[in-house]
């Protein structure tokens, strides 16, 4: 399955991954409109952490043993057998935040307006997610991981 690699050594914490994640999940695909004109700002599913010289971008890593799936009270979070991705069914989710309490990365958060949980959805089937495409420093890239082998995904910018 596809995963996103974080190369923390070259991340400068600029936050563009968050910005492009927000844009990707906005109702309009125009930065200015999405951020300034259309109601509340869309929420980012990736988060930048920075402290001193260290910074990196965190999002759901689609755990092999997804605690969120095991904990969910309603069955709203499941793994898609085809893609291996963990996804939230917004219709079923009641926004109780039980999943948030067990996620080791703090990667799932509540959309307070709609009272539903949101997380990285790999830009819903995009070949390369917006954060990876738009990281100016190539601190993020896509890989294909089958449990033992890792290969850089074709379209991902090469870090080497």
């Amino acid at each position, binding site marked *: 399955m596809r995963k*996103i690699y*974080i190369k923390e050594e070259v991340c400068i914490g600029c936050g563009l991954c968050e910005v492009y994640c927000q844009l990707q999940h906005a109702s309009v695909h125009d930065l200015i409109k999405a951020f300034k004109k259309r109601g509340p700002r869309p929420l980012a599913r990736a988060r930048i*952490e920075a*402290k001193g010289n260290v910074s990196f971008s965190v*999002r759901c890593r689609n755990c092999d043993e997804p605690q969120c799936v095991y*904990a969910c009270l309603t069955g709203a979070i499941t793994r898609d057998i085809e893609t291996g991705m963990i996804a939230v069914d917004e219709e079923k989710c009641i926004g109780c935040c039980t999943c948030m*309490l067990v996620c*080791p990365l703090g990667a799932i958060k509540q959309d307070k307006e709609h009272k539903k949980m949101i997380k990285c959805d790999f830009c819903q089937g995009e070949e390369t997610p917006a954060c990876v495409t738009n990281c100016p420093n190539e601190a993020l890239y896509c890989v294909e991981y089958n449990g033992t082998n890792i290969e850089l995904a074709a379209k991902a910018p090469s870090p080497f």
Partner: protein
Amino acid sequence: MEYIERIKYLIIGNSAGGIGAIEAIREVDNNGTISIISDEPYPAYSRPLISDFLAGKQTIDKLNYRAADIYKQNDIKTIFGNRVTNLNLDNNTVLLESGHELGWDKLLLATGGTPIVPPMEGREAGGVFTFTTLADAIDIDDYLRQKPDANAVVIGGGLIGVSVTESLLKRNVKVTIIEMKERILNVILDEKTSYMEHKAIKDSGAEIITGHTVSKINSNTHGEVYGVTLDNGDVIPCGIVIIAIGVKPRLELINGTNIKVNRGIVVDKHMQTSVTGIYACGDVAEAFDFIYGENRLTPVWPNAYLGGRTAGLNMAGKATDYPGGTNINSMKYFGIYIVSAGMISAPDKSYQELIAEHNDVYKKLILKDGLVTGMIFSGEVDRAGIIYNLMKDRVNVESFKQSLISDDMGLLSLPETVWRNRLATVPPVNGVDCAVS
């Protein structure tokens, strides 16, 4: 002798624990026969959602925990609306209420909890209910449709009592909660947060009486409830009573067998009971609690699923340890978001409490010897999982404990070895150490 069908994996209980088990078994064994038995007549539903049903927010089909075809897809035989009345440990068979007998190779007891109903006078009266099953919610709904003007008395101010109160208020039913202890939600919240809930519930129009119990439920000559009498003699008129004191392990099948029971069925790290081949999980089981370092009852949904999953993997031959669980709760009653895990306050002077408080935010940690043994966060609950996992992994936080209750708490609040470990799930790529997400 009559032929008795033998099932490879026999599961009693079709809820969080039972489903956790069958999903895990099918990850390991695609062919072994599985049967799942429940005395409830429906496919697995989300038990916590019965309050949304009662509030009128969800229809019955929306309560389903899994897709309707999960049993068919996984080739699982369902025996619903039928109760197991007896376990025969000599022959490895169960007897069903319908008279059928079934044998097992591996048995899972995921029988959950049963509501606690104290022996109070009048509890048989019409209009007195418990609130732990969908059938309860349907019965209450029917009753209130006939008596829309009835006021309610809810006995017990714990999770289930508060949950049913919220549903009743949404239906414009007047509610009085009677809590025996000094404060509501006293098992899962500390004084501060339980007061927040207390205030929110009062602001929503319900009455709360603490420090008292109901000594008698009063009914008229038709056997219908018209009020309750408290231990101090006060009388509260009402048309419906919900007994929501809590649940206890449902042990009717186990009593009299040699399966070891303490408060619940005692299981080892594989979720196996004292009898080889018989496993238990969920509300009925006493499994390892990593905060207390001993087996405890932790009757919450996530632990039931995870215990069931662990049992299932072991039943199917994949040796797997239960990672341990502790009481965790995440609630949003009356619009207040609170998460809690482990202890709710320092039990004695050898523990320390760390508290951060500002605006609507309240964060409290309980620590001992550098380990977090409890947490309560309210107002700002994002990323609480980072701390819960420190508790679970028994990470010593002494050197950075203060940063855990700061507003910008995140992975970088943790030491480098820990955050690297959190991010990394796969080996280095082309020799380069990378974190993966």
